[in-house]
C-alpha cells in the first residue's frame, strides 16, 4: 500500500441499495463509513416494492440492512440530514443533524447516493390521478400488491376493494414528456417494472387482463427481452399507444381509455384500475445538498458525472452512485456503488481493518459445529481482457498498490473501443483510450501479456493459480482475485447486401472509418441506418443495447456536419434509455427520420444499376412504403459473445444461452461471478456502452478490494466432501454442480471438491448415486435423524 496516501473515513449520504452497497464494500475494504439516512430506516425504495426484476431480492434487502447496522466499520445515522460541508477532497468536515443533536464528522470522501423519488403525476390533468381513486401510481400498486400490506397480497382496487379484472398501465408518466411531464429523459426502468407488475399479477391471478400502453418498449438490459417474451406468452398485452386521457365510466368506478391505435383509429376500452408508470426524479433533498456542495447537475437535474468517469462528480472527493446519478435499475446502482468504492480507494487510504464476514444463516441451522481454516490471501489480481473494462479495473487496483497481471489475446490493448469514435454523449473515445492505454502500459504495478491466453486455473478465492501462455512462453501467476473482462464480438450481417455492395457498412467498420476519414460519409446526400440487424430475432433473442444510441449519435454527427443530408433510421423499438432520450430528440429536431419496422415487414435493400442502393420500408404511420436511395447504409449488427466457453470452464463461470457470462445468482452481486473471487466486467456479461463498461471495470476492482485488503480468508465451513472409497467417478456431481466445482481428474478417477470453491448447497450430495458425497452439517444421517426426531417427539 502506498504510504503517501491520505487516510480517511467516508460519508455516504443515502441508505438505499446503492448507499448500502457502497458502505459495505468500503467497510469490507477497511474504511470507516458514516451512512447518513434521512428516514428512520435504511433500504431506500426497495422495501416499498412488491418484487424486483429480474430476480427478486426482497428477501435479501433486510439482511443487507442488518449487515450495515451490525458492521463495526459502519456507523449508521438515521433520521439524519447533512447540514453543512466544508473542506476539500481528503478532508471534508460535515455537520449532520439527527432528531435531537448535531454531529460533526470528518470524511476523506463523500458519496451521494440518496436516490430518486417517484414522479408526482398530479400535474397531468388528462390522467386525473387525484380525481379517481382507481388511478394509482406504480409505486402505490407495489404497496397494494405487497403481502405485508393491508390486503395481504391480494390486489384490490382502492375505490371499493373489489378484485380488479382488467388493469392498464400507462407508461412514460413523467418521462419522455417535456409538456405535462416536464422531463425529456426516459426513466429507464419503468417498462420493465410495468412488465414485472403485470406479470406478477398475471401469475397470481391468471384471469386478470393486463395491458400496457407504451411508446417504445425499453427492454434493453440483460435478460429483459426474454422476460418480455415470457410476459407476452403469459398473456400480458402490449399496446403501442400513448394515452391522451383517462375518462371515468359514468355510473361506476371503472375507467375508460380511448387511444389511437397504430393505424390511427380510435379504440375504447374499460379498466377496473389504471396504473401510472411514474418516472424517476432525483431526490429533492439530495439535489439541494448537491447544489450546496457545488456539484454540477445535468439538464434533468440528476447529478452529473465527468466524461469517462461514471461516478465522479465535478467536485473532487465527491462521488455519486445509484439513481441520483440518473434513472437506473438495481444492478446498475449496485455496480456504480462498487465503482465508487474503487475510485475512493485509488486516492484515500482506509482507516480501519477490513470487517470480518458474518457467519451465514446456514451455519446457524447446521446440525454440527462448523470449522473454518484461515488461508493467506495473495494480494495480486489477474485481469483477463485488455479492453476498457479490463484496463479500468487493472488501473484502479494498481493505483491502490496491488500488482495486476493483464492477459490480452490480441496484440494491443483497447479492445472494442478501438473502433469507437465517440460515446453517445459525443465524447471523443480515441483520446480517452490513448490516455488509458498509456497509463496502464506505464504503470509499474501492471504487467501486460499480449497475444496470450489463460490455459489453466486452479485454486479458490484468495489463492488462485493461473497459467498464461503465448507463442513463446508459459508462465504461472498466483492471484487472490480474477477479473474477467474479455469483451464481445460484432456479427457480420448476412443480409441487406452486406459484403456485396461497398456502400453497405457494418457499424464497427463504419465507426472506424468515422475516426479515420469521416469525409467519406459526410458528403452523402442520403443515409440509412438499419437497427436490430441480427438482434432480437431468430436465435438471438436479446437486444444489443447500444445500437440505438449509436445510430442516433452518428446521425447527429453527420447531420451537424451536413445539415442537408437526409438520414433515415429504420428501427424496431427506439431504446435510447435514460438521458439518451435527449439525443434521440436532438436527432429528430435535426430532421433525422425514424421509421419503425416489424419483423414481418423488414426493410428491403436492393441494388440498382451501377451499384446504386435502394431501400424500401413501410412507414409505420402512413402505412405506405417509402423508397429511399441512400448513398450508404449502416447496419447495426448484433453484439455476440466471443466464445467464452473455454474461459468459463477454466474459471467455473456459467454461460447463459446466448454465451455471455452469468453473474452470481446471489442477486445483489451483479458483477460477481458464481465462483467467489472471480468478477465480471464489460461486454462479456452483455452488450453495453463504454461508460457502463468503465463502471463495471471499476466496480470489479471495488469488489476485489474487499478480498485483497485482507491478510487471510476463511475456507471451509458447510462444504461437500467426497468419500474416495465410495466414489465411482460417475461424473454426476460434475454435471450437477451449479458452480462446476467438482472435478474428476482422469488420473485420480474419483471426484474431488475444492472446499475453497464449494458453496455448500448440497445438490451433488442428493444426486450422487453412490452416496459418496456428504455435506458438513447436512448429511443424510443428520437430516433423516432430524426428521425422525421431529416425528417421534
Amino acid at each position, binding site marked *: 500500500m502506498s504510504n503517501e496516501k491520505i487516510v480517511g473515513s467516508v460519508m455516504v449520504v443515502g441508505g438505499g441499495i446503492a448507499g448500502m452497497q457502497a458502505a459495505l464494500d468500503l467497510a469490507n475494504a477497511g474504511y470507516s463509513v458514516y451512512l447518513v439516512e434521512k428516514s428512520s430506516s435504511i433500504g431506500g425504495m426497495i422495501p416499498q416494492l412488491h418484487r424486483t426484476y429480474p430476480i427478486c431480492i426482497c428477501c435479501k434487502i433486510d439482511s443487507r440492512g442488518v449487515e450495515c447496522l451490525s458492521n463495526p466499520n459502519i456507523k449508521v445515522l438515521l433520521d439524519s440530514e447533512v447540514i453543512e460541508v466544508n473542506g476539500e477532497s481528503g478532508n471534508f468536515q460535515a455537520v449532520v443533524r439527527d432528531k435531537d443533536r448535531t454531529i460533526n464528522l470528518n470524511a476523506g470522501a463523500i458519496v451521494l447516493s440518496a436516490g430518486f423519488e417517484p414522479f408526482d403525476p398530479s400535474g397531468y390533468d388528462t390522467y386525473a390521478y387525484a380525481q379517481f381513486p382507481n388511478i394509482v401510481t406504480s409505486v402505490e400498486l407495489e404497496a397494494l400488491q405487497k403481502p405485508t400490506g393491508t390486503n395481504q397480497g391480494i390486489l384490490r382496487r382502492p375505490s371499493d376493494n373489489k378484485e380488479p379484472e382488467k388493469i392498464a398501465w400507462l407508461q412514460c408518466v413523467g418521462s419522455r414528456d417535456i409538456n405535462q411531464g416536464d422531463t425529456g429523459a426516459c426513466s429507464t426502468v419503468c417498462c420493465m417494472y410495468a412488465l414485472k407488475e403485470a406479470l406478477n399479477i398475471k401469475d397470481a391471478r391468471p384471469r386478470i387482463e393486463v395491458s400496457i400502453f407504451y411508446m417504445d418498449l425499453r427492454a434493453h438490459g440483460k435478460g429483459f427481452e426474454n422476460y418480455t417474451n415470457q410476459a407476452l406468452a403469459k398473456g400480458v398485452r402490449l399496446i403501442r399507444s400513448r394515452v391522451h386521457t383517462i375518462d371515468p365510466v359514468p355510473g361506476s368506478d371503472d375507467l375508460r381509455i380511448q387511444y389511437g391505435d397504430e393505424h390511427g383509429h380510435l379504440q375504447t376500452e374499460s379498466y377496473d384500475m389504471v396504473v401510472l408508470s411514474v418516472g424517476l426524479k432525483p431526490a429533492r433533498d439530495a439535489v439541494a445538498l448537491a447544489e450546496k456542495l457545488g456539484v454540477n447537475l445535468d439538464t434533468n437535474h440528476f447529478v452529473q458525472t465527468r466524461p469517462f468517469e461514471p461516478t465522479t462528480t465535478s467536485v473532487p472527493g465527491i462521488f455519486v452512485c445509484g439513481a441520483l446519478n440518473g434513472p437506473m435499475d438495481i444492478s446498475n446502482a449496485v455496480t456504480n456503488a462498487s465503482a465508487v468504492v474503487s475510485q475512493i480507494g485509488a486516492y484515500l487510504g482506509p482507516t480501519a481493518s477490513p470487517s470480518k464476514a458474518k457467519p451465514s444463516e446456514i451455519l446457524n441451522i447446521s446440525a454440527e459445529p462448523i470449522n473454518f481454516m484461515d488461508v493467506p490471501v495473495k494480494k495480486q489480481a489477474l485481469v483477463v481482457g485488455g479492453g476498457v473494462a479490463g484496463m479500468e479495473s487493472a488501473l484502479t487496483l494498481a493505483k491502490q498498490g496491488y500488482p495486476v497481471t493483464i492477459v490480452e489475446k490480441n496484440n494491443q490493448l483497447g479492445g472494442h473501443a478501438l473502433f469507437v469514435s465517440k460515446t453517445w454523449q459525443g465524447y471523443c473515445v480515441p483520446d480517452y483510450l490513448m490516455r488509458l492505454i498509456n497509463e496502464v502500459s506505464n504503470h509499474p504495478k501492471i504487467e501486460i501479456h499480449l497475444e496470450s491466453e489463460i490455459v489453466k486455473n486452479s485454486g479458490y478465492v484468495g489463492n488462485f493459480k493461473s497459467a498464461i501462455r503465448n507463442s513463446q512462453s508459459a508462465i504461472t501467476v498466483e492471484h487472490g482475485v480474477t477479473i474477467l473482462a474479455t469483451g464481445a464480438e460484432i456479427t457480420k450481417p448476412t443480409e441487406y447486401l452486406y459484403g456485396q455492395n461497398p456502400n453497405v457498412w457494418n457499424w464497427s467498420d463504419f465507426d472506424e472509418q468515422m475516426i479515420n476519414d469521416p469525409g467519406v460519409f459526410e458528403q452523402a446526400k442520403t443515409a440509412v441506418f438499419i437497427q436490430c440487424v441480427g438482434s432480437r430475432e431468430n436465435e438471438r433473442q436479446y437486444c444489443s443495447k447500444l445500437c440505438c444510441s449509436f445510430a442516433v449519435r452518428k446521425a447527429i454527427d453527420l447531420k451537424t456536419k451536413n445539415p442537408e443530408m437526409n438520414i433515415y433510421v429504420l428501427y424496431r423499438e427506439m431504446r435510447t434509455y435514460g438521458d439518451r432520450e435527449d439525443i434521440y430528440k436532438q436527432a429528430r429536431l435535426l430532421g433525422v427520420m425514424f421509421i419503425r419496422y416489424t419483423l414481418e415487414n423488414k426493410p428491403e435493400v436492393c441494388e440498382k444499376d451501377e451499384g446504386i442502393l435502394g431501400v424500401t420500408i413501410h412507414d409505420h404511420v402512413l402505412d405506405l412504403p417509402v423508397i429511399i436511395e441512400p448513398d450508404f447504409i449502416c447496419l447495426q449488427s448484433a453484439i455476440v459473445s466471443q466464445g467464452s466457453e473455454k474461459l468459463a470452464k477454466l474459471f467455473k463461470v456459467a454461460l447463459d444461452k446466448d454465451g455471455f457470462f452469468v453473474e452470481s445468482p446471489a442477486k445483489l452481486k451483479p458483477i460477481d461471478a458464481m465462483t467467489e473471487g472471480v468478477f465480471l466486467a464489460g461486454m462479456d456479461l452483455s452488450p453495453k456502452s463504454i461508460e457502463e463498461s468503465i463502471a463495471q471495470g471499476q466496480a470489479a476492482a471495488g469488489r476485489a478490494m474487499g478480498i485483497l485488503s485482507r491478510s487471510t480468508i476463511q475456507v471451509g465451513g458447510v462444504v461437500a466432501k467426497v468419500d474416495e472409497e465410495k466414489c*465411482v467417478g460417475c461424473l454426476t456431481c460434475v454435471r450437477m454442480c451449479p458452480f462446476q466445482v467438482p472435478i474428476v481428474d482422469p488420473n485420480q478417477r474419483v471426484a474431488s471438491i475444492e472446499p475453497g470453491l464449494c458453496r455448500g448447497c448440497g445438490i451433488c450430495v442428493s444426486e450422487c448415486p*453412490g*452416496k459418496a458425497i456428504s455435506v458438513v452439517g447436512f448429511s443424510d444421517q443428520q437430516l433423516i435423524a432430524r426428521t425422525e426426531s421431529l416425528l417421534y417427539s
Partner: protein
Amino acid sequence: MIIAEQKPIQEIKAMIASYQKILVVGCGTCVTVCMAGGEKEVGIIATSLRMALRLDGKKPEITEDCIQRQCEWEFVDALKDRISKVDAILSSACGVGVQALAERFPDKPVYPALNTTFMGMPEKHGLWIETCRGCGSCELGRFGGICPIARCSKGLLNGPCGGSQDGKCEVSKEMDCGWQLIYGRLKTLNQLDQVEEILPPKDWSTDRDKGQRRILREDVYYEQTV
C-alpha cells in the same frame, strides 16, 4: 457400460412378498453410474418395499448393502455373512450380478430389481443410449465408428432403408437413423468409398447363437487352487 433400469416396485414386491428377511444388494459399478442400482437406489428400493409390504400387513426386515462389483466372486463372497441371515436376496445389479449371487449362494433365492437393458452410455445426463450389441465381430472401422447393427433399427449393412427421413428412423422420430450418422461421419472423414463396396451377409456365428459365449485367455488363465 451396462445400462439397466429399475423394475416397478409392485413387480419387485410380488417377487419377494413371501419372505420375511430380505437383503437388497446394490452394485457399485455400471448400475451405480447409470443410476439404477447403486447405494442411493438401494436405499430407495428398500424404503419403498418396506412401505409397500407394510401396507400389505407385513413387517419384513429389509436390510441394505452395496458392494463394489457384483460380477466378481471376491466382492460377492464378502456378503456371505449377511446373506446367511436373510431369507432372500434382491439384487439391484445387472443380470450378471444377479446370476453371480445365485451361483454363489445356491440355497438362497435371488431376485432381480432391475431390467438389464443394453450396453451404452449417457448421451446426456439422465439419457442413455445403446451403442453396442456385442455381436462378437466388430466392423466399426468400416462404418466410421458408428455401429449399424446396434444403431440401425434393422441392422442393415449396405445403406439406409427407405424409412429414413430427416435423419430419423422410421421407428421413432426420437431415434437417429444410424445410417445417416454413418454416412455423415464418413463424408466428413472423406471415407465414403468404404461403404460403396457391397457387403455380403453378416457372419453371425460370433453372436450368441452358439449358446453362452466364452473367452479363454491362455496367457492369463489361472485356475484357483484354494
